[in-house]
């Protein structure tokens, strides 16, 4: 943080007054933090926790007794005896004028906007009673960037709060976007004004989750999905990613961290999907193939460490920035693509449906999955593994459109046979989950018996980098590390480039901090407590699953027995494995 000097000193307790209320705080806290802790709401459009404050929106200004000018509360630290006023007439005028200024340079097509009803600017315009335009004049006009498969940028709705820039730079270390041009013409864009598609953006969608307005959003494909459902000649199958069932409920008034798998299946069936599957099945397949790959690589002395490849944002990042690590990457497809490949082969064959008639939809917590679905390598027998990816947010809108109240729906079961799942696959939704699941199976592959304690607590939690040493046999101890957030991924990649000094054997990387439960396609907001609860919910589910090991998934066992033959077989390679290539900024597909 820019305020290092303040942080070096240990915090001291201070007494301050906010709006004449005595409050005890510590001097390493900002006025905004203290006020929020005490339920005093100070509006802000640019502030983000854990990111260097830019102090650019100036809406959070407050008055301090004795200070000549109002100060921004997001970056002013409290001092003993400070008397702060958050709502004086002067402050109210300032906030109103600032919101008016923003509105004056805005598209103002709220009714057409995806954020209608949950837009931070709209909220403030309401609160500050803006009922007309005082400052109407010229407007910034820049073209809509629709070049990307996943991300749509509307610069005319951008208020230049710089949250996206900061998140891209400081949380993800991608720095695909920054501000360019001066003054009124300033615009957030990628290098040399390239489109998102041409840029080094990895489409993780973390920027979308923090955008206060409708300037950043996912490419909505719900219409295409609905058309497929309405087409009588098409069999629409859908798979639901592990983390969706514990996040989607939040938007329907269900407590954070509640599993709504059953209700979700009902909702999707009522919407007209022909078959509903659980991506956890695909995850179990991934676990088996990846664990097998790991054990094989160790036994044969092949390239180590092995790096997991479930996160499409991470893969794109690696292809852009660390193409030299390609030999380290697991060749396993992600669970979504594995599941898709199996649906269009094994399942279609079994149900005697022409695979060409199958339209495979995936509901993902991720925006980069939309990009993954378009990758030309993820095609089998001329058919893409996935036809459409819906993010959690798109699904929420669709459910609402169908007038379904998720809370009131009865539970239903996933369709067989690709609906059977295990606890190991379920925890894929959180950082460290892939590793934990794979290690459980790797242990079994080597020892032909299961780990005594299935829970590998070292790789649980929301830390960015989690290291663990796992003893597989008395002679074999694996050094494992799970990193989430691309900034942490970069640290690990740099280590491997430098010769792998920590001698890692197995690495799991997730592009989004905390894993899929905090994915770019999840409901907006960045509340750490909410993310913790979502992760806990997944671990609790794992505990209550009757089967907690991927290799014990009977449906998976049957699949191998009847179709894929054995782990790492030719058929498995054909359907479940892929490859990667270096990606310059120009070549994005």
């Amino acid at each position, binding site marked *: 943080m820019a305020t290092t000097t303040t942080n070096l000193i240990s915090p001291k307790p201070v007494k301050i007054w906010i709006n004449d209320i005595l409050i005890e705080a510590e001097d390493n806290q900002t006025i905004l933090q203290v006020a929020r802790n005490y339920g005093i709401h100070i509006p802000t459009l640019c502030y983000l926790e854990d990111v260097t404050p830019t102090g650019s929106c100036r809406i959070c200004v407050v008055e301090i007794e004795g200070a000549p000018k109002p100060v921004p509360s997001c970056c002013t630290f409290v001092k003993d005896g400070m008397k702060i006023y958050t709502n004086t007439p002067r402050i109210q005028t300032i906030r109103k004028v600032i919101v008016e200024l923003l509105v004056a340079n805005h598209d103002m097509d709220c009714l057409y906007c995806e954020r209608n009803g949950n837009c931070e600017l709209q909220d403030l315009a309401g609160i500050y009673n803006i009922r007309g335009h005082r400052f109407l004049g010229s407007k910034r006009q820049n073209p809509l960037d629709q070049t990307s498969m996943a991300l749509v940028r509307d610069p005319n709705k951008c208020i230049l709060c710089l949250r996206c820039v900061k998140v891209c730079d400081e949380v993800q270390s991608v720095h695909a976007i*920054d501000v360019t041009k001066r003054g009124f013409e300033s615009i957030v864009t990628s290098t040399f004004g390239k489109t998102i598609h041409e840029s080094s953006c990895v489409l993780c969608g973390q920027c979308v989750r923090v955008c206060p307005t409708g300037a950043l959003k996912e490419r909505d494909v719900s219409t295409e999905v609905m058309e497929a459902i309405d087409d009588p000649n098409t069999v629409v199958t859908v798979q639901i990613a592990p983390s969706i069932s514990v996040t989607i409920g939040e938007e329907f008034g269900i407590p954070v961290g509640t599993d709504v798998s059953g209700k979700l299946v009902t909702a999707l069936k009522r919407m007209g999907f022909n078959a509903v599957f659980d991506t956890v099945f695909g995850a179990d397949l991934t676990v088996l193939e990846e664990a097998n790959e790991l054990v094989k690589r160790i036994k044969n002395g092949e390239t180590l460490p092995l790096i997991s490849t479930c996160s499409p944002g991470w893969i794109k990042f690696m292809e852009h920035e660390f193409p030299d690590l390609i030999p380290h990457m697991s060749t396993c497809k992600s669970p979504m693509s594995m599941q898709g490949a199996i649906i269009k082969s094994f399942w279609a064959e079994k149900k005697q449906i022409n695979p060409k008639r199958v339209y495979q939809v995936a509901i993902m917590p991720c925006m980069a999955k939309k990009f993954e679905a378009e990758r030309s390598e993820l095609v089998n027998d001329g058919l893409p593994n996935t036809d459409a990816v819906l993010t959690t947010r798109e699904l929420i809108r669709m459910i609402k459109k169908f007038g379904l109240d998720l809370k009131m729906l009865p539970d239903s079961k996933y369709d067989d046979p690709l609906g059977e799942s295990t606890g190991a696959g379920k925890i894929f939704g959180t950082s460290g989950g892939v590793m934990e699941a794979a290690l459980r199976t790797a242990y079994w592959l080597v020892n032909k018996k299961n780990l005594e304690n299935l829970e590998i607590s070292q790789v649980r939690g929301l830390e960015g980098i989690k290291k663990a040493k796992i003893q597989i046999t008395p002679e074999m101890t694996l050094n494992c590390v799970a990193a989430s957030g691309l900034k942490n991924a970069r640290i690990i990649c740099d280590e491997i480039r430098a010769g792998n000094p920590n001698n890692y054997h197995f690495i799991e990387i997730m592009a989004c901090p905390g894993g899929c439960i905090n994915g770019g396609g999840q409901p907006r907001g960045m509340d750490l407590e909410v993310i913790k609860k979502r992760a806990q919910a997944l671990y609790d589910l794992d505990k209550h699953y009757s089967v907690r090991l991927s290799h014990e998934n009977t449906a998976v066992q049957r699949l191998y027995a009847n179709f894929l033959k054995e782990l790492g077989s030719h058929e498995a390679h054909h359907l479940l494995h892929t490859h990667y290539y270096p990606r310059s900024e120009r070549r994005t597909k």
Partner: protein
Amino acid sequence: MKLKEMKVMTEKISRKKGTTKKTRSTNINEIDKNTNNKNANSKNTNNKIANSKNANSKNTINKKAITLTQDQYRKAKHIQNSKPIIFIGMGTCGLASGAQATFDTFRSEALKYKLDIEIIPVGCVGSCFLEPIVDIKLPGKARVAYKQITSDKVVEIIQRTLQKEEIIREWVLGKYPVEPSSSDEDFSDIPLISDFEFFKNQKKFVLSRCGVVNPRSFEEYIAYEDGFKALAEVLEEANPQKVIDDIKTSGLRGRGGGGFPTGQKWQFCRDAQSPDGQKYVICNADEGDPGAFMDRAVLESDPFSVIEGMIIMGYAIGASKGIIYCRAEYPIAIKQLTNAISICSERGLLGKNILNSGFNFEIEIKKGAGAFVCGEETALIESIEGKRGMPRIKPPYPATYGLYGNPTNINNVETIAQIAKILNYGPAKFAEWGINKSRGTKVFSLTGKIKHAGLVEVPMGITIREIVKIGGGIPNGKKFKAAQIGGPSGGCIPAHLINTPIDYEELKEVGAMMGSGGLVIMDESTCMVDTARFFMKFIQEESCGKCIPCREGTRRLLEILTKLTQKPKNDYEVVDRMKSMISLKELAYVIKDTALCGLGNSAPNPVLTTLNYFRDEYEAHLYENRCPAKACIGLLSFRIDAEKCVGCGLCKLNCPNDAILGEKKQAHYIVEEKCVKCGLCKSNCKFNAVILE
């Protein structure tokens, strides 16, 4: 100090003749190379480690590199020169007036006339309106300055002055005083240049060497006013705290605009803890104010003073690295600085173990790409770091968290250039000049509706009226209306406040600010609404776009002011103009209160001061659609005086929009709705029948 008061070395000079070399030194580089102590310092680098020095113990340093032999001194001061020396003012202002052609002509004509002369390009002496200024020092005679010597006058100078030793009276600006100890012959009937009307009431301190010395000559810097003496003393005394105390005693305040006490700023930086021990000093040479060129003149004409000031500043603060952030639009300044830095490095004044004192210091030049906001210290730091020049939030201030997170001190050129001079002159004596909390002198670049535009250095406390007087008053017999002080975000001071003294606080009181020294004089033909609009246009273009009030707000201020300077086309626009005028002040104050950096905070100043002092003009624009100064073309209409019009049809012929009606030999008529106000009718009318009102 005045030119005639310029301190003179007291050592006796022997009067031997013929010590100068015979080679023609028209190549400006050669002048610097004629010294023989180039290698002097190489023997002294016995790498003392910068140990913590006791305040009482004196440091022994090696002054050889900065000590001139008598011959060198005489040559540097051009005493008893054997051949004529031509000094040509070749700063940016000189070049703009044609100094390059003058220089070239002197060179070629001298060859033709077989004259052995030395041509020395110098910087700007301040009287930019008289450029190109050419000084001639005939062998053994006083140096005489000629004004406005364009290339066509060169031959005459060669024939009359150089060949016949005749002084051309009508071109004379003044003479320079002769060295008292020398035998140079004085011209008793020619007045001193310092007595010239423009210089008479100035106090040359920062600019004292400008235009006088060769900016590329290390020896001349030392010879004139004890260059590097202050640095030697500082290193000898080995007490950095005393330097800071001296600067505090002098009462020097930042000349870049903010006016923060320089000594205090240095103290903060000296006291700050650096995570890795590295501290930085930065010279802010990103002079971006339109119409301001004080720093450019100093950098072009006296670059060594900036280098010396920076070394002293680095020593006082404990920094081993200095950066000069200079805008790339100042190529000559960058050239002179680069030259000065390389000479200082060669002579052991930069680099490791400076003058054998154990102190290490390096200077690097960073070129700015032309953003106005990069003059703001934190934006400047971001720019040096290679990022987009956007101001940081303060606190933390650069003194604790600056360049690359290390304690950093930033001062502007004018502040740094006078550090050595203050230490030489005596901080307490320096503090005697000025009033209240404003001490010393201030350089202004005087422009606008003024007879004599140029650089003016005056003691603090002098009134604006006196500065206008120095500039020779308003041309064409017009009346003084306002002075815009402090750059684009300064304020307009009206005629009734013309006696406001130049003082940081007093200027703030009237709504303006000291700024870096831009001073634009306006007369009655200037419209104040239009002036506010002009500055707002600049500010909103140069806003970095980071904070909302500045990015969005300044554009709206500009739009409101633009509306005022144009006639409303319909009822909607009339109401819109009224409505936005009501919001103008509120918006201006919100920007002032909330903008993130100094640029934004002061951005509404031109609007607020003009609104305050020239409300009647705003009202005339708003209610009557009238511009009292007749400057806002959008509010004026072209009309044909039927009495004067002879019906020649020239206006009709030239009108690009067919807005003029009329039959031959009949009075013509302009249809206002169609008129695009290009003014072609007026310029083409031979009978002055087209009136603008």
